[in-house]
């Protein structure tokens, strides 16, 4: 069966520091991968999605970036965090056969201080 992992689970970082969040998927090949952000008490905002290694599409211009160095690995990064980057970051995957059925990871709660 497929599983999706995210780490760290919780992160507290000062403004201006770098960020690296990692997401990995097991049990499937060539998944579509997604990064979402959820601000406190709000809905989900799609940040990035990827249909293959090195293929990244950005939904919203911001100081975040994403990379996909391996088939089942998706990384969310920032060179300098802003206070507004605080939130709950969710990674999700879908299969190429059913691209719209997304399965979510456990999430990373980021607090920028």
């Amino acid at each position, binding site marked *: 069966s497929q599983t999706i992992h995210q780490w760290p689970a919780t992160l507290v970082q000062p403004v201006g520091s770098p960020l690296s969040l990692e997401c990995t998927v097991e049990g499937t090949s060539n998944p579509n991968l997604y990064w979402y952000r959820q601000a406190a008490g709000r809905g989900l905002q799609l940040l990035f999605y990827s249909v293959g290694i090195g293929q990244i599409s950005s939904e919203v211009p911001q100081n975040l970036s994403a990379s996909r160095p391996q088939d089942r690995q998706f990384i969310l990064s920032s060179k300098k965090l802003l206070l507004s980057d605080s939130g709950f970051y969710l990674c999700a995957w879908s299969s190429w056969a059913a691209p719209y059925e997304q399965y979510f990871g456990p*999430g990373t709660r980021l607090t920028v201080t």
Partner: protein
Amino acid sequence: ELKVEQNPLFLSMQEGKNYTIYCNYSTTSDRLYWYRQDPGKSLESLFVLLSNGAVKQEGRLMASLDTKARLSTLHITAAVHDLSATYFCAVVPMRGDMRFGAGTRLTVKP
């Protein structure tokens, strides 16, 4: 651009009562998803609705889709405390990516 509106955004109800959450969307779609999120947790898929008139039920929850009206409903029957959570609908347009509603925070009180 696709807009997805849920209402109500906050819902407090007594155990044993019935209620409906509405999800309206602004463009043609025949794929709609309902998710549940417990506080501090990730999203759990509840229902996938893939055609006009689709109806799915799981326990005390029933979801339906009317693609002509661009409306989905999530009906809660005889609510229990365990149903307290935030419920999201998500719509996939004919062109573009999945968009989520803002969520409905449901609290079921004894």
